[in-house]
């Protein structure tokens, strides 16, 4: 039998149903008597609601805040001192704080009818001046998003190990102001929810496109005033999440309230316009950053003031400060810094709340830091990867506690960088740059190296102000009478292939055919409590829990098998689907049949716990695992159009022991595509009135098949000493290093004409403007 355990590139078990169009998403769920909901949304970014006028004939189809009796506001509080709490009402009651905020909900027999009612509702709003820019939002005398705060800052943090000496004396000191624009997450499937009240079980049953069914259940129960046992959340097939589905939506609350009070199933399916303009916002960082080094490029200090535009509300459960607080703790990257200072502000504006997005904070941090590394290299006339090598943590230093006490578990960062440099052929590119291109384009080479903390637990999250994140997971396994294995996990698989990889883990322990192993997930009624799928934690934590539960089950199977084989327990072993003893062997299926169907063959003192086990797993350290990777890109910039073509792209990644290398490659490829989008294409701009300017995918430019190059991936496999099999979380890395590799390559190309872009995405317009500015500057110097 071909290996289907750890390390095998097994084809994904779940793909059959998707490839045949038989996946079941929220939009596929149709319940008898179901109503569709559509929302009346605020047309203005900031204002006071005077009245919401509903024509008489629609009174029964329209609900406003005053109708939603008993529904509490959404509060997501950071545990950090000084955090200012925001209250997000499911439907706005007094003020609106962003375009697209929910004002009223309309129901109809289908979405079109509900939308027709939306058109009849008139919101009378007294407009207030909005705050749309995070930098001016901190100025005195600006309008306040939340008046009771007295300013527009959710939270300010400060880390300082003492940088003044280095700032005063460093031979090389580079400062920049860098911006990462606001983006929208764009999973293929938008958000969607169907809710119904089940009279038999006295339960609210909620089918929702979520990554975190258990947390949504907790949030719903709290806001609706229900017992948790009266809420069942199921996430069916979910078409991508990236963080956008790791929140509790006000829409979910409203739809649930309607289902309870109308005694009918109610559905809301988000359309792309709603996602883009009113919901799926992410990123938006501003860095005022200084990197100090000696003449050789050895780093002396890093000093940064970082502002994150967190939008109007703190989203549940990860809060408005998820990005900024993480920035402060991960900005030093994979490097050794002797001195570090970082101030952060999570600023409230009249825009959509920013939500966690794959590579939370890290994509911005890696972009900012790696941009600075290239600038230092340029200043001292060294190859950027040599400056990186000068400062990377070495394998001899592992495990390593960095300047902010991040505990890096294992790896050979310099080797990773060297392999990327070799694969991208740095010398060849440099020669090509000297020769120039026949078509006049400017070739650039860029690299980005990072480490990705993953599967980190309680201590780390509470330091970021995020409570309720455990450093463990549980799994339930049941050996069924026919010899199959049911594995129930609280995580939710929305594209990661966990139905396959977790089966591989179970196979590794029990030797059962992975086709007979069924992973059950995404249903609060069927699985152990879990915070769900996010933070690159599933393979490490849930994988650990599945293995631990299988090991316990294995012991019980072995005990019964030994009895049936009349062998001593210590003379038996479980292997390839059999309990084996010197006297013979018995298949696991026969053990199952005996337990369930022939109890007379079991000893009287048999272990009564049977063939069902719930077990938990916790990493050896709360710091989790640190996968890492170096991305390298060669691209050509057209100096007249400002367009960019990526010519070559390389990733060298170390994800520890790989459970399924094919799936890891898929994660890297998809993430890199998203990072290329961040670097070159994706931006959600707002005008000065707080109006989102892009409302379709024609304007919001996502990279497509023709923009994403062939990506060459190489693996290193340094086991983590802290995880069960040495595996590391790698879910987000692709989206992290790619931004820096591409932006550094653009600026490497542009430095040949003295230009530099300090903002993502590096669009044709920004690149042309930078080239023009450089030209004007040269001319003014010349005269």
């Amino acid at each position, binding site marked *: 039998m071909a290996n289907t355990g750890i390390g095998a590139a097994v084809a994904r078990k779940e793909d059959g149903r998707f490839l045949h169009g038989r996946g079941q998403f929220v939009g596929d769920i149709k319940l008898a008597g179901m109503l569709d909901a559509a929302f009346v949304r605020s047309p203005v970014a900031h204002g006071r609601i005077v009245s919401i006028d509903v024509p008489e004939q629609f009174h029964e189809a329209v609900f406003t805040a005053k109708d939603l009796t008993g529904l509490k506001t959404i509060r997501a509080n950071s545990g950090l001192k000084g955090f200012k709490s925001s209250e997000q009402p499911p439907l706005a009651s007094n003020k609106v704080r962003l375009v697209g905020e929910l004002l009223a909900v309309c129901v109809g027999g289908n979405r079109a009818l509900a939308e027709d009612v939306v058109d009849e509702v008139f919101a009378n709003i007294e407009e207030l001046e909005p705050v749309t820019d995070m930098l001016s939002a901190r100025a005195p005398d600006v309008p306040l998003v939340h008046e009771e705060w007295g300013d527009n800052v959710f939270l300010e943090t400060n880390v300082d190990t003492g940088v003044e000496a280095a700032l005063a004396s460093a031979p090389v000191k580079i400062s920049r102001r860098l911006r990462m624009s606001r983006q929208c997450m764009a999973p293929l499937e938008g958000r969607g929810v169907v809710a119904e009240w089940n009279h038999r079980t006295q339960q609210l049953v909620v089918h929702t496109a979520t990554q975190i069914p258990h947390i949504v259940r907790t949030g719903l129960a709290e806001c609706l005033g229900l017992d948790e046992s009266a809420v069942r959340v199921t996430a069916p097939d979910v078409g991508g999440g990236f963080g956008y589905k790791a929140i509790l939506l006000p829409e979910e609350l409203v739809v649930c309230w309607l289902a309870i009070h109308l005694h009918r199933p109610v559905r809301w399916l988000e359309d792309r316009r709603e996602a883009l303009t009113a919901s799926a916002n992410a990123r938006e960082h501003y860095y005022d950053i200084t990197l100090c080094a000696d003449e050789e490029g050895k780093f002396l200090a890093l000093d940064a003031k970082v502002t994150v535009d967190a939008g109007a509300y703190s989203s549940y459960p990860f809060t408005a400060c998820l990005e900024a607080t993480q920035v402060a703790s991960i900005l030093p990257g994979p490097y050794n810094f002797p001195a570090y200072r970082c101030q952060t502000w999570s600023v409230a504006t009249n825009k959509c709340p920013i939500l966690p997005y794959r590579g939370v904070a890290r994509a911005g941090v890696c972009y900012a830091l790696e941009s600075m590394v290239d600038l230092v290299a340029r200043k001292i006339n060294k190859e950027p990867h040599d400056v990186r090598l000068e400062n990377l943590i070495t394998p001899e230093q592992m495990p390593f506690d960095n300047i902010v006490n991040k505990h890096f578990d294992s790896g050979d960062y310099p080797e990773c960088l060297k392999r990327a440099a070799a694969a991208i052929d740095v010398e060849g590119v440099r020669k090509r740059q000297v020769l120039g291109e026949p078509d006049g384009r400017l070739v650039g080479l860029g690299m980005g190296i990072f480490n990705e903390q993953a599967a980190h637990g309680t201590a780390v999250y509470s330091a970021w102000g995020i409570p309720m994140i455990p450093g463990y997971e549980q799994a339930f396994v049941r050996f069924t009478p026919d010899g199959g294995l049911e594995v129930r996990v609280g995580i939710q698989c929305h594209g990661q292939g966990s139905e396959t990889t977790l089966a591989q883990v179970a196979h590794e322990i029990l030797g059962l055919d992975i086709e007979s192993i069924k992973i059950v997930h995404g249903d609060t009624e069927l699985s152990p409590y879990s915070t769900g799928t996010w933070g690159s934690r599933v393979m490490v934590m849930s994988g650990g829990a599945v293995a631990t539960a299988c090991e316990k089950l294995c012991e019980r199977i072995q005990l019964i098998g030994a009895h049936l084989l009349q062998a001593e327990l210590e003379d038996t072993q479980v292997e390839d689907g059999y309990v084996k003893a010197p006297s013979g062997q018995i298949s696991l299926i026969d053990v199952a049949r005996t337990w369930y169907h022939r109890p007379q063959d079991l000893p009287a003192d048999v272990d009564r716990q049977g063939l069902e086990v719930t077990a938990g797993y916790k990493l050896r350290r709360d710091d989790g695992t640190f996968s890492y990777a170096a991305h390298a890109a060669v691209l050509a910039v057209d100096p007249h159009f400002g367009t960019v073509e990526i010519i070559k792209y390389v990733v060298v990644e170390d994800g520890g022991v790989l459970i399924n290398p094919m799936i890891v490659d898929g994660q890297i490829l998809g993430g890199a595509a998203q990072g290329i989008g961040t670097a070159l*294409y994706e931006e959600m*701009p707002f005008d000065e009135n707080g109006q989102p*300017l892009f409302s379709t995918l024609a*304007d919001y430019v996502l990279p*497509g098949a*023709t*923009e994403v190059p062939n990506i060459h991936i190489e693996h290193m496999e340094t086991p983590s000493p802290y995880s069960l099999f040495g595996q590391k979380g790698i879910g987000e890395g692709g989206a992290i290093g790619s931004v820096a590799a591409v932006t550094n390559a653009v600026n490497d190309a542009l430095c040949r004409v003295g230009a530099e872009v300090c903002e993502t995405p590096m669009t*044709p*317009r920004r690149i*042309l403007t930078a080239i023009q500015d450089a030209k004007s500057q040269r001319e003014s110097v010349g005269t």
Partner: protein
Amino acid sequence: MEYKAPSSIDEAVMLLAQANGKAHVLAGGTDLLVQIRAGFTKPTLVVDVKNILELRTISVADDGVCIGAAVTGAELGEHDAVKAAWPGLVEATELIGSTQIQGRASLGGNLCNASPAADTVPALVAASAICLIAGPNGQREAPVEQIVTGPGQTSLKNSEFVVQFQLPKKLPRSADAYLRFIPRTEMDIAVVGAGVNLTLDKKGICQQARVALGAVAPTVLLVEAGAKALIGSTLDDAALDKLRAAASAACNPIDDKRGTVEFRVDVAGVLAKRAVLIAKQRAEMN
């Protein structure tokens, strides 16, 4: 809404003339069906012209090429004679939409949808294409550049529709080219488009030139000053710089989220220049 699919020009004209309320001509439907679904237009009658032979035929004769207004992009892209004679027009057509759209979209639809950003229109204008138009008063001819009068507006009178495009006889040492700028690399709508058609003499001196720009004004622009800059030159750097300046000067674009005024003006000049270089290279080989 009534749907009719006549098989002759006369029948189509009659249906359109007798229509009560708003009537639309349907070719590939890649614009019209989207507009109907979105509620932008609510026709009482849709006349599908795909069953009319003249609109679906490509004919090549000594005096030029005729392309039926409802010939699809895919059909045009596989027509060797048209590809050889008018590569610029064919590449403009093939830039429209995806493979699936190519199986439907037509030159006639692209023109009469009257988008300032239509890809084939600058190429047709540069090629001096003439439209054959059918209507209640018989048939008439008009140059392509006279059809579109503004965004979504055409000079076609009630019940008139375009039957075919007549491209002139291809002269020796002449060629066309079309380029567009989009923020992606595929599947997008032109931020700027430039079509060029050139004729050189044996010494490489430009005898005739037409330069047309899309998406930089309410209608496609025929840039005569650009042509003037090229005619009589060997298409040297000085002439190309003049062309670039003329093309930029002719632009009157809007400032929108897809491109600022400055960006469009600048890119239009560069595009025109690059399209000339491609056309020149092709003309030299003819």
